[in-house]
């Protein structure tokens, strides 16, 4: 994510970010997207958020 896009996305919510916060947002989100890119790409079509609760119950003693 580049700073221009980060600024636009934040401003879309009617919030005015400082340049420091825009830069931090762009760099931090870029890093988070990079870390999660592969595992997210490997998710099967059927994976859904509620799968977590089902798994939690399945793993309970």
């Amino acid at each position, binding site marked *: 994510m580049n700073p221009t896009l980060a600024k636009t996305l*934040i401003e879309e919510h009617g919030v005015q970010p400082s340049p420091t916060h825009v830069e931090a947002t762009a760099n931090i989100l870029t890093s988070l997207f990079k870390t999660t890119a592969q595992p997210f790409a490997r998710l099967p079509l059927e*994976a859904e958020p509620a799968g977590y609760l089902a798994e*939690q119950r399945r793993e309970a003693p």
Partner: protein
Amino acid sequence: MSRDEILALSCTQLAAAIRERRTSAVAAMEAVLERAREVQPKLNCFLRIDEAQALEAARRADRQPARGPLHGVPMAHKDMYYREGVASSCGSKILRERPAPSTATVLERLDAAGAIQFGVLNMTEFALGPTGHNWHYGHCRNPWNPERITGGSSSGTAASIAARANFAGLGSDTGGSIRLPAALCGTSAIKPTYARVSRAGAMPLSHSLDTVGPLTRTVEDAALIVQLIAGPDHRDPTCDSKAVPNYVSGLDVSVAGIRIGRPRQHFYDECEPDVARAMEASLEVFSRLGAQIVEVDVPDFAAYSAAAVLISTAEAATLHREWLRKRAADYSDQVRGRLLQGLAIPATAYIDALRMRGAALAEFCAQVFSKVDLLHAPVLGIPAPTIAETELGWSERTAAVLARITRLTRPGSYLGLPTVCASAGFTADGMPIGLQLVGRPFDEATALRAGHAFQGATEWHLRQPAL
């Protein structure tokens, strides 16, 4: 009993002493109020002390038959548990004067057990940050060294308990906010399984990750309190309907034969020698108690942590969006910066982070809990940072500093696993070292049993800071 004898008691011991008339609720309340007044100028752990009201409640308790297992025990909680009509600041300027709309289920349950709330405790603004800093009310100070962070966000809860100015209190945990201050201040604690304890009437930060739990002087107290507050609640639809086992009665069952996992990867990266030594020594204690120590491979949790940050930041930003628009200047810079970041997260990334959670839990359980009953690890591998090192505005560098603090706790939040914390020693410069015992979902009982056995064989949890 003298004041110091009372203040040295755990909740369980104090409740027994009141029940058996060896002391009174009033004597306990007077002792803790006096201690709170003594330490407050040094630690800034209380945001409000309700002295007259608490003493009156203690007098009533002494006149009444015992209401429950905490009858007459004074407690103070992180200032984010609502009492109808009373302001809960949530560590913020924004909510400083807003009367709470209802009473938290966990407070109702502690009230019913006979506990008496005597105040509310400092915390990170809106529970968003692992240092414990609060720029509106002043930072809470670590009783072991006021220059070091307390850990957060449940900073006041941990500091007040460590300083013997509170017998136990509620914290909350979204990425480490119970476990980190417990470790850095040398207290015991439990972060229960996600959905084990009702969050109704607790300030929300991230609906998918928020967990309510107690910080205490002993693991036995943690078992008692989580026993009282856990279980289904019609006011919190996410709260699981499973019956709550009797954690307290299971505490004295031997840990012989329990398999305790020592992670081969990740948890000991960047680990300080003092911390590694304390962890090895604690594993030897478990071994002497008859537990089987097993080396286990653990999945790389970097993606779990990143996914947890995407979820918590997006959910928190959604809750705070209106205030970010209208009252941006009323946030501290660090908290505002973290929240703004959530406004730029695409819905696809947020949903993928939630979609991955079930698979991540399955992967972790298959790799770890197919081989062991508990995972044993440090809460923090690094030394407690100083306040000066973490007194930063929001930037990429700040995010990196904070990520090092939460590195070993955030994966557990993403997986929603129950975790018991206990003090396992001290660094050469006198700071507490915390261990965590992580169990499979809804298996608080095994982690509590192991933590209690550890404290029966060691005395780290009895040490007190010199204040």
